[in-house]
């Protein structure tokens, strides 16, 4: 039951978000209702027109002419306005959703981001949003219009001749049932052909990804034959499906004439008997379409509406992303101890194992500290706690003079500058990217930072210089160059605490050395905390903390740790052995 509730479209949230815009849609629906009635009136007036002709009533004919022209004008106008209003509604709602979701996303917690795949976040905003918008724009009105026109037409026809109406309606279920029976084998073959096509697609993907190996091993014909096997299956199934669907089409076209023949025959008879006017007979022919339409199109439209609401639901689920707290106080960071962990234990939400298990340490102003250890040892978790992504379950984290839980996150993060392993740049110019380190930075700072990161010469050679677009589209930058821009961005931030999370482990030696040189040459009062993979570049740091399974295995200066001959020493020696061998 609760699952079912979750599947329902969050109508109240949607309407609340719509605010006054919902009345636009209300108006559109109202106009569609008017339009439905006008269509039936139009049919009726055509009947009047025919009747007056047959009765040779030129006065009545003139009247009917005037009415029908005005009705036609009114249908055109209402048609346009219904569509126009629906467009206003769907586009405005789309923009509202885009903004609300983007805002949520920009404030979502680290935990929420880990629970959602980035591909999923993307597809909700693209394909799901498209389905939803299309439904708001078109299908909803089509459905309402189809149903109301059918009902009004049905009432009109029943009123004029219930017998003929019922006779015509009696044909419809027979037709529908026959269509279902006939389409069954088509569905079977469609499913099979779809499966074959899936196989063909797999062959294509494999032939493309294995292009080198196929050539190296002379496997061209081998792969062609695999493909031809699936292709032959597809051909067989599709041929069967094709034959069957031709029969279906033939039957479908023939069958649509049945109700009309009934109207022609029976209706003609009734007219000759004087029980029906010829005009009403023509109204029958015209209005029959309006009744038949929903029966034929309803499944398709309902399918689209189902897909659209499901898309809308998935889209609006993004509004439930949990966001970070926005309140808190601004602490003071000008203390001798910048960060202190007191017996901190932490486990990620929903996890059994402790990520940190009774960790204590402190980082003093101006220190360069490194955390090392195997992956999963808790290095990154420490960073996330310092950034306020999570609060520990036990123990206490203090940044500056203020406990972590009291900090306002915005203020806390103003104290830190981060460089992470994957260099991320925004899809905008280099200058703006680096200046984003601090929103109120000035161009000189940006220039200096770029020079410090040794990117100035490279950028000068670019045709667009500092305006060259970075980000995903700026594929002209290598990983190292992008990372150096990220370092420049962190420098611009001018924060007391610099956090480097595996910032150099994806880079080649030269680039790593360059970046480490920048760090080493920072002014004394800047505090740097690094997470590192390779140990050899760490000789310059003041303090090394070796972590293992969420605990501190040992800590100390590089030399002390080597003397201790413990875990760090063995890790380091393994890496340095060759150097010793050689010299």
């Amino acid at each position, binding site marked *: 039951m609760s699952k079912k509730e979750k599947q329902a479209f969050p109508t109240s949230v949607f309407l609340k978000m719509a605010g006054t815009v919902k009345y636009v849609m209300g108006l559109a629906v109202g106009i569609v209702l008017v339009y439905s009635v006008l269509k039936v009136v139009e049919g009726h007036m055509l009947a009047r027109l025919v009747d*007056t002709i047959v009765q040779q*009533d*030129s006065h009545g*004919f003139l009247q009917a*002419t005037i009415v029908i022209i005005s009705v036609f004008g009114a*249908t055109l106008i209402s*048609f346009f306005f219904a*569509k*126009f209003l629906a467009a206003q509604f769907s*586009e*405005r709602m*789309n*923009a509202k959703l*885009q*903004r609300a979701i983007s*805002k949520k*996303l*920009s404030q979502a917690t680290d935990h929420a*981001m880990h629970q959602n795949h*980035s591909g999923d976040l993307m597809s909700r905003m693209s394909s799901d949003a498209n389905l939803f918008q299309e439904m708001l*724009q078109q299908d909803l009105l089509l459905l309402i219009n189809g149903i109301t026109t059918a009902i009004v037409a049905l009432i009109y026809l029943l009123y004029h001749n219930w017998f003929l109406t019922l006779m015509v309606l009696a044909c419809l279920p027979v037709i529908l049932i026959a269509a279902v029976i006939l389409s069954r084998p088509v569905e079977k073959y469609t499913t099979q052909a779809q499966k074959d096509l899936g196989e*063909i*697609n*797999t*062959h294509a*993907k494999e*032939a493309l990804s*294995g292009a*080198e190996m*196929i*050539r*190296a*091993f*002379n*496997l*061209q014909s*081998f792969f*062609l034959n695999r493909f031809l096997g699936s*292709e032959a299956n597809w051909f067989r199934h599709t041929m069967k499906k094709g*034959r069957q669907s*031709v029969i279906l*089409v033939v039957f479908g076209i023939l069958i649509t004439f049945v109700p009309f*023949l009934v109207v022609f*025959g029976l209706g*003609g008879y009734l007219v*000759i008997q004087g029980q029906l006017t010829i005009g009403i007979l023509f109204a029958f022919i015209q209005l029959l379409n309006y009744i038949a339409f929903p029966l034929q199109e309803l499944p398709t439209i309902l399918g689209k509406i189902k897909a659209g609401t499901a898309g809308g639901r998935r889209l609006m689920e993004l509004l439930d992303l949990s966001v970070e707290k926005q309140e808190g106080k601004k602490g003071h960071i000008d203390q001798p101890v910048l960060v202190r962990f007191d017996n901190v234990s932490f486990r990620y939400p929903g996890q059994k194992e402790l990520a940190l298990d009774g960790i204590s340490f402190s980082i003093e102003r101006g220190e360069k500290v490194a955390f090392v250890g*195997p*992956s999963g040892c808790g290095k990154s978790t420490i960073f996330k706690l310092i*950034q306020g992504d999570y609060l520990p379950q036990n123990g206490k984290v203090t940044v500056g003079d203020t406990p972590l839980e009291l900090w306002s996150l915005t203020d806390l993060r103003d104290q830190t500058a*981060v460089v992470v392993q994957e260099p991320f740049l925004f*899809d905008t110019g280099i200058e703006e990217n680096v200046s984003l*380190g601090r*929103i109120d930075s000035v161009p000189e700072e940006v220039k200096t930072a770029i020079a410090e990161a040794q990117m100035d010469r490279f950028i000068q050679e670019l045709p667009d210089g500092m305006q060259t677009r970075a980000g*995903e589209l700026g594929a002209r930058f290598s990983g190292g160059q992008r990372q150096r821009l990220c370092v420049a*961005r962190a420098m611009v*931030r001018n924060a007391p605490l610099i956090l480097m999370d595996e910032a150099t482990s994806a880079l080649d030696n030269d680039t790593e050395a360059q970046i480490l040189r920048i760090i080493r040459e920072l002014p004394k009062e800047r505090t740097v905390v690094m997470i590192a993979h390779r140990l050899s570049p760490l000789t310059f740091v003041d303090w090394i903390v070796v972590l293992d399974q969420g605990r501190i295995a040992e800590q100390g200066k590089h030399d002390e740790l080597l003397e201790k001959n413990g875990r760090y020493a063995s890790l380091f020696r*393994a*890496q340095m052995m060759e*150097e010793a061998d*050689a010299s």
Partner: protein
Amino acid sequence: MIRTLKSIFRFLKPYTVQYIFGVIGMGVINFALLAYMAFVLADLTSSIVELDQALLIQTILNAIILIALTGILLWFSGIALVSSLIKVERDMRKAFFSRTLFVPLAVHHKYPSGELLSRFNHDLNESVALFKNSFQSLAIMLFQGIGSSITIFILDWVLGLWIVGICFGVFLLNVPILRRLRKASQKVQREKAGFLRLYSQLVSGQRIIRYFNLAGWIYERVFLQSETLKKAGIRRNTLEAMREAFSEMTFLGIISIMIIGGYRAIEDPTTLPTIIAIVQLQNGVAYLFSGASAIFAEITKRLAGVERLVEVMDIPEEPDMIPFPPVSPEHSAPIPALPSHKGLFVRNLSFAYPDSSRLVLNKISFEIAPGETVAFVGPSGSGKTTLFKVLLGFFAPLEGHVAYSGRSIYHTILKEWRAQFTYVPQDAFLFSGSIRKNLEAAFEDGSEGHLSDNRMKNAARLANAHTFIEDLESKYDFVLEEGGNNLSGGQRQRIALTRSFLREAPILLLDEATSALDSESERVVQEAVSRLMEGKTALVIAHRLSTVRQANCIYYMEDGMIIEQGTHESLMNLSDGRYRSMVIAGELEEVVSQD
């Protein structure tokens, strides 16, 4: 456009008669049904007006017979159309697929696999839809429209002129709207893409946005972009509503005929049936004018898909041999008398990728005696992998010579040349299908029956794969998913190694995997790799110290050149050697990784 059409029609050629019969049949039938309806209505009207019951019955009977006859014709032309379409689709897919297999590898560098795949799926569908939908709609539209117009003109040429005039007027009214609509739609597409680009940065840069307090900055951009998109969307949809409303105006034709005809019929009631017929036929004329622009727009759009498809299909296949003299005349030189060297001989080999002047390989020379192992070491981008690709004949060299056992690469059929190599890339290449099928791919074109159970199992034992395969439910018939994703990384590598053992080619090209395995599977794989190298002329792109230590010679590459060569010990003794500093920096992995 004409050329594109021509090139796509070659796929229709074998089935032209079938297809044309089908398409024309569809057009004729659609017109016929419309015309019956018109005349049935006319007869109906006269029978009613004259209160003639016999005529009424006759009319209904006539209608039933005509509709039934049409059904038979519809069945024939439907079958002809559908089967010709399916054959065309099959032929196109086959031609495209086999072309991607037989073109030179450079084509796959030019078109990323996603691009080729989208042409294979999307553009091929579009091309088929051109025959399936566009041309068929065009035929129906033309037959119905022209047929109805002619019939109306025969019935009453004045009303005929009037109807065509109104439909044409509505069409003209629509032309400027259509143009604006097209532009507005393009703008919506652009703005939507712009928004999604922004949003995707929000997704992938979320951490940076939080850590740098950039939520406000990005929100401002989202706000502006969604505002632009909203305006573009409203404009597009308003134009669309206008277009549809204008198209509805062809209904004016019906009304005006009713009025004009009505006045006449009041004078002379016998004209009423003709008026009714004309009103019905008017639908066909209206469809011609309202549908034409949409159909032509659709054809133009689909032709773009055809163009992308044909572009790939027209790429020539890989030649049988690598051309000599090499591609650029300035580098050409006669083939020197090759030494009767038994092993692999490479002299002055240079290479640059097409459309690039940068030499990825710059006068590379080395010789390897049979059974020797050499290692290639250097920073990424130094040309090691490219060297392998040129050795395999994937690309033609700019200059230089390659020979094995005294046979030049320029004088050997590529297929035979490649048969001398076993290439082991970093990522195990496995495809969907049974393990057995994957192993059969060791042989040229996977010739079946080649592979006895005994031979297969022996190879698997050598690759340390037999035990785990025997533990699988269906053993060697275990079916791999795409990319072998239902096996672990180590298992995948060992199956690929089994295939390499089966191949029994004299030269091994091994691109060592940078370790992504736990130490136990790492050890098992390493053991199999060492066994594979035994007795072979082996070239290894090395990432491990243990590997380079075993090599008879190490070539250190940078910028496409071999700048140091020698054994590990001798290279470590060069005090300012590049290789030495690389080793000291820890660039090569220990076998037991530190994690």
